[in-house]
């Protein structure tokens, strides 16, 4: 499991929004999609996925709808709302700023000081 990265606190919501933004998904699908787009590097603790989904729905960022799964079972599908899309944009921008700032800081050498 050495290739797995630690999930940073507060990033789960952002990842869920990203995953759902690509295509409407059911809960298990969200788990698979995050694993896929992180190239198997991120493993979401299954128990904390659903409370996060419920919280995002409660905040009006996700909408839900019952649909049919790939193997023809009834499943609850999550889609991004307008507010969710806006939030995703803000979080992405914020994340990118943070990442570049931290990597700039971390790559600094003693000569540059």
């Amino acid at each position: 499991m050495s290739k797995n990265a630690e999930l940073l606190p507060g990033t789960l919501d952002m990842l869920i929004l990203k995953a759902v933004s690509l295509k409407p998904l059911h809960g298990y699908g969200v788990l698979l999609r995050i694993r896929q787009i992180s190239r198997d590097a991120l493993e979401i603790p299954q128990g904390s996925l659903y409370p996060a989904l419920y919280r995002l729905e409660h905040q009006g960022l996700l909408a839900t709808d019952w649909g049919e799964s790939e193997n023809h079972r009834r499943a609850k599908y999550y889609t991004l709302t307008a507010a969710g899309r806006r939030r995703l944009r803000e979080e992405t921008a914020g994340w990118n700023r943070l990442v570049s700032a931290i990597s700039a800081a971390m790559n600094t050498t003693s000569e540059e000081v």
Partner: protein
Amino acid sequence: MLARVRSLLRALLSRRRFEAGMTEELRFHIDQYTEDLVRSGVPVEEAGRRARLEFGGINTVEEDCREARGLKVFDEARRELRYAGRQLRGNPGFTSAVILTLALAIGANSAIFSIVNALLLKSPPYVHAERMGTIYTRVTGPRGYDARHNLDGEQWELLRDHVPALISAVSTRGTSGANLEAGSHVQFLHAARISAHYLDVLGLQPALGRNFSEDEDRPHAPNSAILSYSLWRNVFGSSPDTLGHSILLKGEPYSVIGILPEGATTPLNADLYTAIQAGREGAGAGTNFEAIIRLRDGATWQEADAELNRAWSLRTGRYELKDNPGAQVSFYCVPLQKAETAQLRPQALTLMLAAILILLIACANLAGVTLVRMMRRAPEVATRLALGATRWQIQKQFWIENLLLALAGGAVGMGVGWAALRGLLLLLPEHFLPVARIPLDGRVLAFTLAVSLFTSVLFGMLPALAARKVDLRSSMSSRAVAGAGSQTLREALIAGEVALTVVLLTASGLLIRSLIHLETLPPGFNPNGVIVAKASLDDVRFHDPAGLRKLLEESTAAMRQIPGVQNAAVGISLPFERAPISGDLTISDGPAAGRQVETDMVFVTPGYFEALQIPGLVGRSFTERDGPDAQRVAVINQTFARKFFYGVNPLGHYLEKNLLIVGVVADVAVPPGVDAAAPLTGEQAVYIPYRQVDAQTLSLAHAWFQPSWVVRTAGPVEGLTGEMQRALAGVDPTLPFSGFYAMRDLQAKTLAAQRIEVALLGAMAALALLLSAVGIFALVANLVAQRTREIGIRLALGATVQNAVVQVGRPGVGASALGLVLGLILGAGALRVLRSALYGVDIYDPLTILAVALTLAAVTLVATIVPTLKVARIDPAATLREE
């Protein structure tokens, strides 16, 4: 924010759908995962186990999801409510005791408070009622008083013309009977006389027509009348033609100039109003008018008082200073509401005080019962603490239980209050309250709710505080739960509530004794077998003395002919009724010669004393020979003889120069007119033959008093009232009787206020007694429950059941006895305020105190013995086995 509220509401409203959806979603996840694991080669059983394991505790996840939705608070509240409900249901004795106590206390309070609110707090139903008022007189000096002022004609003219700060009006004091000829029959109605601007002061405009003008209100102006809406509708069929036409009232034509709007009330509430036309003659020669005033815009009460005192300093008659040397007289305006309710204020305040005592008693009960419950629950609290509950959680649980109880008690209490208010209002005679109707209004409900919450806080605090002190180890290891301290506190609470109960019991006992005294006062005549009919003689036809004589003589003669009738007579007033008063009757000779005295003056026909069986003491009664042209004669009563003849035989002495005293009769009980000593007294009275009264006095007296036809029968006579009406119609077919009464009705009417006070206070004392009994019962019952083990061991060791009963019952009896002593001491001080309401009984009445002590002893014994009956059922063997 809005989205969150909506999502929470959706989850709350379709909770079942939310839960089902959540379960299905999670199961779908696990199934999918399992499938994926199987596909990757994991054996089926192993796959299911691993999927569930990796997912984590499904309950925890569900709980986290609910919390994410904001449902947690509601779930907890619901759980706590359910738990509290279960606790309360599991303890029906405690729960019903608390709810009953709360309901009775709150119910009694809100009913009483509704009445007090209507009487003392609510303003009268007029526009800007706070600017309306009436006039009071304040006289200082040895015979000082402070009371509502009645005006004579001179004062009225000065008030009207010289007090610009006020719009002033006068009216008669109350209504009097009058006959209205409507079509073929004559109707008896209640009429009042009012001055111009009276309706302006009230802010009332007629629905049709107009108010009385100043011209119509001058003496000897043409007759005019204003009708109430109900009279116009019921008698004149709401015909618009009524306005401007004349009606035949009191035998004379009156032109109708106005009709009041529907539902309009006045302080008089008459069927019909005529112009008072007050001058200095006739009714204006005496203080027969009542003032009602309204402050003009921009003026102040101080200005009005100053102008009033200046205006009335111009008076020629200063009767207040008669027999009162060195006195000072001043006048002042009093707000209408205060004046209208002044008479009922002491009673209303007494009742309110009683209601507060009831509330205190209830609180003591609740605190006691809750304390015991808390002590009994100490092991439960300790267990929950040991299992990790925080003290705050446990306290919260107590608060929720108490809030539930308080709300239930408050709700039931509102029902009780509504019913009690209905009952109280039914108890009151009509027109007893100066306000039209009393609803259980919003302020009262707010008050009730506040009381309910306050009580909850008060008695909920004790166990909540006690929870902080529960010691884990000792509570769990020992089954002996109640400490000695709490037992003492309980007994103190019981003693306190018993003391308050004793005060209430004593107060109502004294009032009952006082009422019995008044009701059993020797009436001075024989009230049994007498029936009375009243009619209005305020009619031009009877202003002629000859016409009146004919009516009285022939109608009484016809009534004597009715089979079974022994005697019949007419009097202008009767025992148990106010009589006309003469303010300045001169005693011409005898020991008090020259004195002018105030006395009742009763006009009667021959046979009056015989029909009522008022015993004659000396001399003779009136006969047919005492006619208009014979020597003018009078019969005086015993009090008059005692007060003004000091043991000298009054026969042969004269009043008013030529009024010869020919007899002395016993006193009869009357409401005070001259000296307000008691609700019924025997005060000085002079009886005059109806036939010797001059025409002017008669018409004046008949404007205020409706004479009574008195008929005495040997036994019940079938259809007597019909026969009496026929006898009257035989003489005057257009004169209606206004009603028929037994003497007991008149007595009850006079004592109505006392009777109501006794009923109300008696009911509240009974309520207090009931609450105290519940308190004592709960105390002893709890002791029995607590000591079952100990008693069992004692019984096994040879103690008798009696010994055990005495031992557990002792604290209840002891607390009650202590309460009795405290209550008597408290009552000795507090009940002094009752003194003015008591007649014929002192506040230190041994009989009342004895009755209170015996009642309390009986109730205490019952409340103590009933729970101790359980002791006999304790099985010593079972107790020993348990050990």
